[in-house]
């Protein structure tokens, strides 16, 4: 195994110890099976406790793991007959976003996702999964096509964010993201979005306006990368771990805040340990969610999606003239607007 995160070091050490004991036992022809099984047991216990109690900053490491499966790997596992389609028809083909048509248990669907590279060369071609406007416009073109041919849309979200470059600005990065948000809200087909790694800022959300938003257990979703947040908040990007703790970026947080609808469990140690098993979990979740939505009319699907996002947000009205605007924020929400969520 390679690419262990720092919090996985106890496991690495223990694994080395087990291997050494095994070697020693074989070389010296001594029966040490008792000790080995004890160590194996200890390994399993430690492993479980580590992955169940990951801190947000540790999840961030897992979500960015170099071997974490990417969109194309999941597409190969979950769908059949994938036909990749290219280009935004106005500027170019952004390899940081991939998409096309595929079959899910025989049903044609449109699949779109951010694509990170698997090695340095690939990562440079894919721009580390950070799209330019033409990437978002390619995604929009494919989704509009799905809407036209009544195909459900499945998106995979995995990006540090939209690319922060001058060419991206010249071609309208903000407008490209904004238009995706507005148009995704208007489609009359089921949309399922799955955060598979890093859900970073507007670049992630540009593929994220779905009827159902699902999230892999150890993936993260945030308003900006923890590094960028730390540099905005404390002018120090090295405080990223601190920002990660404060910002609530884990799948559990997203479920609590009503941002995602369902968490898809990961194999022990993260999805890179068993891509096929992970893909099976995802396929099951996609199918069960899709089955619920297929009977809905285009209008219902659209309204369902708009209503889902309309509800997100927490605020309050100041109740009486004596209320202090700030101290009362922790008390209660006396006057809430219709259908607004207030904690």
């Amino acid at each position, binding site marked *: 195994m390679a690419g262990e995160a720092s919090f996985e070091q106890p496991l690495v050490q223990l694994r080395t110890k087990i291997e050494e004991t095994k070697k020693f036992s074989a070389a010296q022809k001594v029966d040490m099976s008792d000790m080995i099984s004890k160590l194996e047991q200890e390994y399993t216990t430690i492993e479980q406790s580590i992955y169940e109690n990951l801190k947000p900053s540790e999840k961030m490491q897992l979500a960015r793991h170099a071997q974490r499966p990417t969109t194309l790997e999941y597409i190969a596992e979950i769908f059949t007959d994938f036909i990749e389609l290219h280009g935004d028809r106005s500027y170019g083909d952004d390899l940081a976003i991939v998409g096309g048509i595929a079959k899910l248990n025989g049903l044609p669907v449109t699949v779109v996702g951010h694509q990170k590279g698997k090695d340095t060369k690939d990562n440079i071609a894919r721009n580390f999964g950070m799209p330019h406007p033409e990437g978002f416009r390619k995604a929009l073109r494919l989704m509009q096509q799905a809407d036209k041919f009544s195909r459900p849309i499945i998106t995979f979200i995995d990006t540090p964010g939209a690319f922060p470059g001058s060419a991206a600005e010249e071609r309208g990065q903000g407008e490209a993201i904004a*238009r995706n*948000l*507005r*148009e995704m809200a208007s489609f009359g087909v089921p949309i399922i979005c799955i955060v598979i790694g890093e859900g970073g800022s507007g670049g992630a959300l540009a593929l994220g306006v779905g009827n159902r938003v699902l999230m892999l257990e150890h993936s993260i979703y945030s308003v900006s990368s923890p590094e960028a947040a730390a540099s905005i908040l404390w*002018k120090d990007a090295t405080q990223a771990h601190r920002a990660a703790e*404060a910002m609530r970026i884990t799948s559990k947080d997203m479920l609590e*805040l009503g941002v995602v609808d369902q968490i898809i469990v990961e194999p022990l140690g993260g999805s890179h340990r068993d891509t096929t098993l992970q893909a099976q979990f995802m396929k099951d979740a996609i199918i069960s969610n899709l089955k619920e939505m297929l009977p809905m009319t285009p209008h219902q699907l659209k309204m369902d999606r*708009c209503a889902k996002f309309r509800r997100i947000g927490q605020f309050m*009205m100041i109740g009486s003239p004596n209320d202090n605007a700030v101290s009362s924020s922790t008390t209660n929400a006396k006057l809430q607007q219709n259908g607004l969520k207030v904690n």
Partner: protein
Amino acid sequence: MTVFDQLFPRKKVYINIPAERRTPTVKPIASVEESLDEVVQSPKELPNNLIYKCPRCTKQYFTKEFEKNEKVCPACNFHGRLNAIERIQITLDEGTFEEYQADMVSVDPLNFPGYKEKYAKHQLNTGFRDAIITGQGEITGNPVIIAAMSFEFFGGSMGSVVGEKIAYAIEQAIHSKHPLIIFSTSGGARMEESILSLMQMAKTSALLSQLAEERGLFISVLTDPTLGGVSASFAMLGDVNIAEPGAIVGFTGRRVIEQTIRQKLPDNFQTSEFNLKHGQLDMVVHRQELKSVLGNLLDMHRVTPSVVEGF
């Protein structure tokens, strides 16, 4: 009565914004704004506040003269920043404004370290409850739904309150069939509300898709600066996108881009003129002509049967 209640009468009546609110007092620049000021121009005011020195041409004026000129430098046409009240004041016909959801404040949903204190500080320093004021009024006799942001409040950042007020304003535009005008100025999403801030982008844009379906007119006016999550949602989605001269409009701020590409960017990068050249805007309009341009646009979209009959 608290100071807020004096500023924002609770009753929904047609109000005049008191004259003294048009002149904001000098206040310490908060940390959020400091970081943003590195990428955007900011008017420098002398401590005594009597003299205004234009940050572009460095000419000095009496502050009163500058304010009388709607905060535009009489010599070089530099456009200073307006807050929400100043903006509504110069845009709407006098006495026509009726505010929506004046009592709405943030609840610190994530219990974010330091947010409550910072929020209170901004409220005290600016007299605003959050970074936006929404409502309805008239422009040259045309009824409109209006929203105006204040950069001086928390860097104009969008959290749940801004998102909700925009969403509500769009709904009013849908129901009333009146045009919607949003004056944006923002550093982007509010970090302290994290993912909920991000989701306000989807919320406001989703409602704009409904407004578009109802064929409602939306004019977006981008003022200095409009960045990040606000430019990547409602601000860039106008049927007509207008910006004030010299306003910085973009997704990623200049400093971050310079760090990423390790190059110095040209001085005009992300200005309205730059964005106009790159096809992101319909027009750049001087502040003193803005009201009449808006009035003409509104008039253009009010085609009654009598207009057709008279053709």
